[in-house]
């Protein structure tokens, strides 16, 4: 951030004319945080007005990573957009694949075989594990715990990425799901490896929690900071862990019961205060619930076909109509709205990006808090700019 107080000399002031403005009468300072600030998780900018150290106004600025993903998808076939969805939220490419495949299946009326559903659940929950772990790691990084918690999280993430690589051939850009199923079956020995990783994961969570949950600095920096009241959360369209940290019981896995989520026994953790600490804790608890789902899925999965034989990979033309499908991605409600006009390309392809919409209430959460807290509050929203700007 460029809080250059020396900017009052005329020559220097001109150089920062747009970025830094000092209003001597009211002592308000306008600064531009980002787009290349290390704590903004990518090319995200906030125009912040400060009164001393308190935030009095905060406007997010988007578009630095905009490539009009929707237009590109509308000028190509349904299938060709799948690898592109990987690049939306590049931490969770498998969830993105699933949301898109689910919407196309709704649009075309395809059925997904049981084994493919299990593979999808396993892939999505593994994605959630690594996303939440690294989100907490990044959050700690922003509070000044430089490196250690993040590296602990990344160590576990590596194991999950290895599983993704064995399954899909790629660690992050998985491009794995297809309409009506999945691209390839599980490789030999994958399930055993996955079970091993899942069984070992609670040890990491315990370790992580014993290091963090009662850490004095963490408590001081997070409790009562960035409170999001449940009413405002609903009004602002916030979804995912942030919404549940505010105590609103809304998990699309439970509400829509898409895929085969009704077969699994898991709970939806809810927060009480809606502050940064709750948002951190919700993610820890959600990882434990994900492990429960994974444990059940990895033991219930049976051999069978992995793709609907009716699904056409090439020359795929759904009947004219529209469909909106959504899943509970690690960041919130990820939805795809598709309109078919009977041609091989979608007439309209719309991504409902949880990262962007969760930012709607960023200003409300940050008003009155210090600039250092703003960075922490922003960190708990957990955004990926590939999805915000699309």
């Amino acid at each position, binding site marked *: 951030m460029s809080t250059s107080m020396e900017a009052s000399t005329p020559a220097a002031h001109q150089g920062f004319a747009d970025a830094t403005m000092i209003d001597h009468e009211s002592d308000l300072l306008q600064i531009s945080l980002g787009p290349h600030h290390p704590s903004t998780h990518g090319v995200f900018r906030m125009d912040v007005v400060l009164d001393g150290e308190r935030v009095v106004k905060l406007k997010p600025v988007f578009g630095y990573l905009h490539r009009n993903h929707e237009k590109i998808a509308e000028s190509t076939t349904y299938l060709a957009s799948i690898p592109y969805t990987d690049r939306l939220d590049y931490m969770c490419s498998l969830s993105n694949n699933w949301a898109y495949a689910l919407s196309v299946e709704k649009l075309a009326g395809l059925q997904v075989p049981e084994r493919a559903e299990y593979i999808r659940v396993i892939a999505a929950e593994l994605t959630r594990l690594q996303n939440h772990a690294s989100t907490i790691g990044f959050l700690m990084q922003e509070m000044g715990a430089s490196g250690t918690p993040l590296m602990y999280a990344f160590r576990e993430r590596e194991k999950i990425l290895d599983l993704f690589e064995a399954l899909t051939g790629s660690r992050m850009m998985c491009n794995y799901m297809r309409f009506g199923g999945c691209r390839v079956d599980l490789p030999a020995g994958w399930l055993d490896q996955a079970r091993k990783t899942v069984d070992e994961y609670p040890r990491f969570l315990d370790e992580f929690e014993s290091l963090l949950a009662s850490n004095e600095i963490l408590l001081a920096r997070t409790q009562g900071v960035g409170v999001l009241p449940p009413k405002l959360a609903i009004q602002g369209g916030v979804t995912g862990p942030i919404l549940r940290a505010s105590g609103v019981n809304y998990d699309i896995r439970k509400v829509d019961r898409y895929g085969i989520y009704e077969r699994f026994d898991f709970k939806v953790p809810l927060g009480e205060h809606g502050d940064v600490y709750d948002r951190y804790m919700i993610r820890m608890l959600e990882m434990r619930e994900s492990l429960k789902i994974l444990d059940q899925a990895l033991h219930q999965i049976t051999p069978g076909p992995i793709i609907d034989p009716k699904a056409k990979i090439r020359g795929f033309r759904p*009947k004219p109509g529209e469909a909106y499908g959504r899943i509970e991605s690690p960041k919130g409600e990820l939805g795809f709205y598709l309109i078919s006009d009977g041609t091989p390309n979608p007439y309209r392809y719309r991504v409902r990006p949880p990262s962007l919409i969760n930012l709607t209430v960023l200003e409300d959460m940050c008003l009155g808090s210090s600039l250092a807290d703003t960075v922490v509050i922003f960190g708990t929203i957990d955004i990926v700019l590939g999805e915000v700007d699309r």
Partner: protein
Amino acid sequence: MNLEEIKSTLEAAIPGCSPQIVTNGSPSGQHSLLLDREHAFVAAMFLRDDPTLCLDYCSNVTGLDWLDTETSEKVKVTQLVDGVEKEVDEVRKTRTPGYLEAVYHLYSMQKKHGPLVVRLRTENRTDSVHLPSFTPIWRSAEFQEREVFDLFGIIFDGHPDLRRILMWDEFEDHPMRKDYVEPDDYEYEPTPHDAVLKKALEHRNRISTPDGQGA
């Protein structure tokens, strides 16, 4: 409550409101409710506050662009040709003006039902592209309506902060429209760089001449 019931409830609750049901041919079966522009805001408010519907959560807002369509049909007309009445084929072209559409997907977090798909249509695609903004009802529409404004060019009346969101402020067209043509050279767009470049050139000229007055 199904779509028919919602339609009749709206008609009963808001005088003059005439929602139409837009059917959807896909197996998803997500039919939608087309609201008229005049009563859309009141109707949306009703949808949110009605205790049985309670659609407190506006999940997805998006725009659609429907181009002008031209249909031609052959009509037989009797005409006087050389004093004799004859039946002549005539091609009549009817032009249906296109429109822009805003689509809202509403859910209820409290009652856990949905989606209710609500559509609004503009009068045409060119000069009359105003729709009421739903941001005062659901804040989640704030950035999404800005995006629709940016990429489709629908103007939402009543939006508190309707600016471009993804494209830069000086950009002029609306890229998601179906008839959008990419510029041949993006550098022709007036970007902040132009001013910077001009300033740099002036500076260079000034220091290159011995009298300091510039070339």
